[in-house]
């Protein structure tokens, strides 16, 4: 046994990924099924000189990490649906003020306090549109602990690259189940560090003037430059403005910096798609059941494949359209009423061939459920 092999919960794998990425500040309010993220942070961060804050509620948690990020820290908070609802105001602020931060939502059943200890994937659209106003957002997910680790690292990289909040949308099954995790060696996964301005002290610094490549170098708040940060539309110094040119320009910048790089942000895993006549599209814990069906059916010679989504937002529509072009049927496996289904229907050339295999009763959709849905879709009945 070596030290870098662990047997942990998904929530712990997320913590390990965050620490690997260089996280040194966490603020949160514990809530099932995400509590182990906060718990492990409270144990691990003090050991490396980082900060753990237990806040009075979730909006305060997100506000705290926004402030810490501005001062130069890599930051994260973790919650579940009810807390994620409370965070939406601050999430919009982070989008507008372009604050790198990572928000973990380990999903439970909703709406409201819902089904706290059971699995669901009902917050997909909330992650996209929970906060008001036109905006772009990044949301990632994973179906096993090695991937939880990797997408968590990637979340920090994307947050720093595009100066944006990134949402990690896990679920109760992934959060709580235990399996093997191998911690990569330092340097094995590349890290993106904060792009800091080269503007010297006493020289006019424009915190919101993008470089040619669209990136905005930051200056640690409270150090050498004085500047303004606001949730209002703002000019290149960060001061509020209602000048239509500035409002339009910033609105477009906030969308474009994500949407124009959607192909860079898109992460998927492909299983047996080359000759697949039937394609399953899934993500998170549901993808484990889907993969179980695909592998067992392949052994019997059926041409079934799986496209597992790790990037949910921006939705990887081009990849979905391309991979599904020759499929006779496309079945979206998810634990909600069809939130990714709608995206897939928009993306593909033949939406009438797209079906939903779902479960919304707090129980992980199982391989038998999926096989039954496939029989119905094929017109064979259960």
């Amino acid at each position, binding site marked *: *046994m070596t030290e870098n*092999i662990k*047997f942990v919960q998904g929530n712990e794998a997320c913590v390990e990924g965050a620490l690997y990425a260089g996280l040194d500040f966490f603020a949160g309010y514990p809530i099932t099924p995400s509590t182990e993220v906060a718990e492990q942070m409270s144990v691990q961060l003090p050991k490396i000189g980082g900060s753990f804050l237990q806040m009075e509620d979730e909006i305060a948690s997100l506000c705290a990490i926004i402030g810490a990020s501005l001062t130069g820290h890599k930051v994260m908070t973790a919650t579940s649906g009810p807390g994620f609802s409370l965070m939406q105001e601050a999430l919009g602020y982070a989008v507008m003020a372009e604050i790198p931060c990572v928000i973990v939502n380990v999903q439970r059943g909703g709406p409201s306090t819902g089904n*706290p*200890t059971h699995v669901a994937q009902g917050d997909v659209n909330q992650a996209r549109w929970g906060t008001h106003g036109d905006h772009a957002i990044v949301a990632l997910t994973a179906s096993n602990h090695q991937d939880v680790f990797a997408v968590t690292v990637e979340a920090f990289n994307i947050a720093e690259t595009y100066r944006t909040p990134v949402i990690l949308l896990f679920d109760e*099954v992934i959060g*709580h*189940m*235990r*399996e*093997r995790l191998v911690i990569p060696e330092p340097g094995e996964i590349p890290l993106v560090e904060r792009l800091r301005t080269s503007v010297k002290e006493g020289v006019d610094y424009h915190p919101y003037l993008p470089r040619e490549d669209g990136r905005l170098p930051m200056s640690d708040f409270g150090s050498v430059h004085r500047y303004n940060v606001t949730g209002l539309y703002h000019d290149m110094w960060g001061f509020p403005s209602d000048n239509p040119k500035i409002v339009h320009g910033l609105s477009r910048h906030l969308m474009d910096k994500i949407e124009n790089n959607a192909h860079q942000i898109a992460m998927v895993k492909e299983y047996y798609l080359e000759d697949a006549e039937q394609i399953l599209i899934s993500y998170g*814990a549901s993808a*484990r*059941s889907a*993969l*179980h069906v695909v*592998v067992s059916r392949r052994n019997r010679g059926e041409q079934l494949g799986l496209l597992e989504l790790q990037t949910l937002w921006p939705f990887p529509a081009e990849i979905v359209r391309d991979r599904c072009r020759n499929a006779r049927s496309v079945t979206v496996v998810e634990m909600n009423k069809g939130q990714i289904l709608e995206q897939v229907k928009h993306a593909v050339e033949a939406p009438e061939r797209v079906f939903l295999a779902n479960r919304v009763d707090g129980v*992980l959709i*199982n*391989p*038998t459920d999926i096989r039954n849905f496939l029989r119905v879709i094929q017109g064979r009945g259960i």
Partner: protein
Amino acid sequence: MERYRIVFSGSGGQGVITSAIILAEAAVLHENLTAVQSQVYGAEARGGSTRSDVIISDSEIYFPKVTQPNVLVCLTQEAYNKFSGIIRPGGLLITDAKYVEITKKVDARQREIPMYEAVMEKIGKPIVFNICMLGVFIGMTELVKPESVMSVLERRIPKGFLELNRHALQLGMDLTEGVRR
């Protein structure tokens, strides 16, 4: 190897979830096997019936839950009543002789083991009931080595309690001597 689908069940506070974690961790970290452990739990912290699922295999495990265990352990009557029906035909059903009264015959090898009584008689501390159960489990299945379990315990519990747990594990294994597998 045959894929083991295991359910440990009992009441909250008996340590069934802890023993499931120890078993799965021993398999992954010390036997180079693949294992997934999960649990279903409600809002209650104690009482009620709890169950933990463990799958142990030498290949990838995708679907992490157990629908039909080939080994089922029940430490309370309530757990037995609730779960005995899901056992895989030909599987192994282990119950505690004091807490569980076998009320029906299922298509499985039913083994009633006096785990609780033995713990109280030989050790006197009910806290290691779950480790004794783990001893019975590995005595019956030989799925992992007792040294692997002890390695996990060495990392997880204070030194002062190691001997107590070693004793309970051995006691459980001794209880399976002469019991038909």
